[in-house]
């Protein structure tokens, strides 16, 4: 079942990535040893890089094929009305609508999932946001967010806007009022910003506060949450690109289990935050 992917990836690594890497190293070391840098070494580095790019693209295509087969199967088992697109993701404008992540200069998203769980519609994507840092001579991109971004329907009637974020992070939401709730443990872990206090107290009931602490503990990474116009947006900066077969990962049942664990956050959020409650529909 997995042989096609194992062999395909082995071929891409052996035929392109390893030779490409070797050529690039030889070119770099040769140029470095010679000092002045002969064109032949630049050529070797160039060919090496090209081979690595071809190899990576072959692995990426295999990854998409793998997801279209196994991930879609898994999604259909767990959720209903599934739409999956491995190459595209939630758009930049939609992410900005959540008002919770840094805007960044470079934005990428993939693995778009739209489905329904226990009557609740949701969307999920892997997001990468990078900021350009320049010292005048060199420009480099620094990752400011990498991980899943999720959007859920929230049927509770909320007029205002609210943001919840981990206390360790620098606040971006000075334009909203800082709200202190009565949960001591919650206040230690999170900062809450809202357009008005009532919205925060209405949405964040004692049970929801407790569950948010549990979710935060269960999923390593920096947690962002926002309630805007009947939607809950949740993002987890865990520096991971989910659902990828990568170059070194073992392709077998354990990879499917890993995908399943990466999807568990969806059902956990819907059940723990009681988004599936009859009251909110």
């Amino acid at each position: 079942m997995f042989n096609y992917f194992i062999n395909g990836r082995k071929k891409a690594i052996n035929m392109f990535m390893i030779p490409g890497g070797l050529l690039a190293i030889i070119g770099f070391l040769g140029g470095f040893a010679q000092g002045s840098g002969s064109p032949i070494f630049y050529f070797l580095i160039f060919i090496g890089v090209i081979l690595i790019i071809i190899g990576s693209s072959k692995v990426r295509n295999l990854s998409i094929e793998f997801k279209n087969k196994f991930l879609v199967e898994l999604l259909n088992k767990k959720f209903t009305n599934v739409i999956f697109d491995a190459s595209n993701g939630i758009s930049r404008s939609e992410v900005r609508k959540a008002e919770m992540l840094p805007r960044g200069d470079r934005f990428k998203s993939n693995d778009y999932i739209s489905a329904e769980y226990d009557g609740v519609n949701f969307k999920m994507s892997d997001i990468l946001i990078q900021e350009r840092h320049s010292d005048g001579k060199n420009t480099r991109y620094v990752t400011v967010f990498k991980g899943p971004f999720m959007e859920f329907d929230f049927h509770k009637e909320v007029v205002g806007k609210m943001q919840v974020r981990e206390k360790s992070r620098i606040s971006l939401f000075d334009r909203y009022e800082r709200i202190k709730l009565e949960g001591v443990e919650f206040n230690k872990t999170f900062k809450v910003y809202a357009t008005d206090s009532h919205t925060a107290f209405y949405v964040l009931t004692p049970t929801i506060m407790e569950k948010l602490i549990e979710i935060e503990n269960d999923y390593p990474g920096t947690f962002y949450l926002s309630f805007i116009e009947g939607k809950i947006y949740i993002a987890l900066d865990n520096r991971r690109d989910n659902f990828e077969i990568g170059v070194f990962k073992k392709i077998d049942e354990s990879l499917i289990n890993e995908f399943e664990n990466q999807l568990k956050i969806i059902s956990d959020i819907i059940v723990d935050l009681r988004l599936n409650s009859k009251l909110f529909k």
Partner: protein
Amino acid sequence: MWIGIGIAVAVLGIWYIGTYNSFRSLDIKIEEALSGIDVALTKRFDTLTKMWDLAKKYMKHEEGTLTKVVELRQKNSGTLKDAQELSDEMTKLQAGLNVVVEQYPDLKSNQTIQEVQQASFNVEEHLQAARRLYNSNVSIYNQKMVMFPSSIVAGIISATKKDFFEAEASKREDVKFD
């Protein structure tokens, strides 16, 4: 030396004004939270009377509770004591209505009563949020009043301890659904 004394007096003055203003601002927040409770109680009253209209033929024994709720609603002057009393009576009436709805299947299956019940759960959540917000502000105020050095300013302005909005034991938990 005079410069030192001048700086000390200025610092003390700024601190006093800051602390005084924070007491005043908390006072306003408490007042606002109390009117939030009043708004939620009005909504709760509306949903309860709608529910009563739909279930009244089954509610012969609960008429006294409704009369009391209506009376309390009329004499409600927006104070904490009035709000608390009204809220407690409404809780009793709500409980009575819920029991009756459960007892009569034809009533329970009525689409309108289901919608009103749903709305009353929602209103109840708003009331709880307003109550928690009020108590949270009162708690901050009371702590500030007894903590040194803000207790000095509290003494000067004769600040008094505020009362909490006490909910019945059954209402201290989140609303249960499903």
